[in-house]
């Protein structure tokens, strides 16, 4: 049974630092072997996770949802009303949130998502998070100077657009619904989904129209 004792956890971390090798590759290998020995892990299941969730899963589920919301006003209304139920209409595999909240970017408000305390992220729609999302720099700065951080990502918002930062402190997960770019009226859902970057669904990018030569 866990001790539920912060001081004991701290002491354990210090002991590990003194007694275990510092090479993380070695540590993870040992951890896996011990867990298999203890019948807590099946290496075949680990292989399957790596194959499906590390190598195949990307942000395309999220982009599919966004493109449908751009094309189908009824779906968009359902998505904003109850993101969890609306996404369940798709047959996505993956790790889904118990509660999904979709944040709509408008002419007046630009939403951006962070988890300052750890790394909460909508895995089922966006796949494993990029390294920067989990990094000290993003977590510390985007709540304090969101416009400066967005500028580093190539997003410069006019002063009249309000920035709303969402700090994911519960089990709710947040997905940004970016604005549909102008000049994309003729595109179908698949072509639109290709315009939706992972970062646009975190809020550190905008969905962008295809370049002229590609659109022709």
């Amino acid at each position, binding site marked *: *049974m*866990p001790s*539920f004792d*912060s001081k004991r*956890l*701290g002491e*354990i*971390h210090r002991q*590990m630092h003194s007694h*275990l*090798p510092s090479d*993380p*590759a*070695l*540590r993870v*290998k*040992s*951890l896996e072997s*011990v*867990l298999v*020995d*203890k*019948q*807590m*892990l*099946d290496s*075949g*299941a*680990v292989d*399957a*996770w*790596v194959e499906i*969730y*590390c190598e195949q899963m990307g942000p395309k589920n999220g982009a599919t949802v966004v493109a449908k919301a751009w094309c189908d006003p009824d779906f968009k209304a359902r998505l904003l009303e109850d993101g969890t139920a609306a996404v369940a209409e798709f047959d996505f*595999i*993956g790790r*889904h949130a*118990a509660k999904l909240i979709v944040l709509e970017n408008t002419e007046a408000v630009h939403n951006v998502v962070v988890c*300052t*305390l*750890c790394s909460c992220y909508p895995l089922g729609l966006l*796949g*494993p998070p*990029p*390294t920067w999302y989990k990094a*000290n*720099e993003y977590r*510390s700065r985007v*709540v*304090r100077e969101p*416009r400066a*951080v967005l500028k*580093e990502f190539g997003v410069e918002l006019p002063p009249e657009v*309000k920035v*709303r*930062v*969402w*700090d994911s402190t*519960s*089990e709710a997960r947040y997905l940004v619904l970016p604005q549909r770019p102008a000049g994309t009226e003729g595109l179908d859902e698949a072509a639109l989904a290709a315009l939706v970057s992972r970062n646009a669904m975190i809020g550190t990018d905008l969905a962008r129209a295809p370049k002229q030569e590609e659109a022709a």
Partner: protein
Amino acid sequence: MDSVHDLGGIEGFGPVDRSHEDEPFHAPWESRMYAIAAAIKRPDDWSIDWFRHARECARPVDYLTLGYFEQWCMAYEAMLLDSDIVNLDELAAGKAAAATAPANRQPVTAEQVRGKAHYPENPLRPGGSPCFAVGDKVVTRLAGAPGHTRLPRYARGKPGVIQSYYGNQLLPDAVATGRDEAQPLYVVLIRAADIWPESADSDDEICLDLWESYLEPA
């Protein structure tokens, strides 16, 4: 717990490094660790908040400098040691001691991993009588809390407005101490101008998910 994991608003960090923008994993052991965490047969008395707390209790210098998945590995090692499931010698050797009789556990199989959606345990609990309504003005609690908690330092003692209500949800502070206790959970909107001295003229806003015991009436 007032530890270094509570990074929001801490100054001194530089530009966001996007050099590996499209590579969530940088080495095979990183994706392996991610998958181990997903496929492990967890003891019933572990929880997501206990895991978070196991990472938060790392040596502060390690939290700020070691890689993300290295810290996941350390958090799992720490939870296993804390629960007396393994000992340090076993982790050092990468092998269970011969004397250890394996429990009759049934780990997740590859078939169970493939081709289906995985949902975490739903933290929503029945009941709950929220003290606040949407639009109510509140002040976030000023004091920190021992152990695991989800009220970031930068958002303590600040005026806010209830933006929405998410229902009666498991309280991380309680879950991380082994108690299945729920409280009303709200989205609270706080003006950047009320948090950061340099944002006095800003209309920007911050929304956080905060439990009822983190809040007081304004």
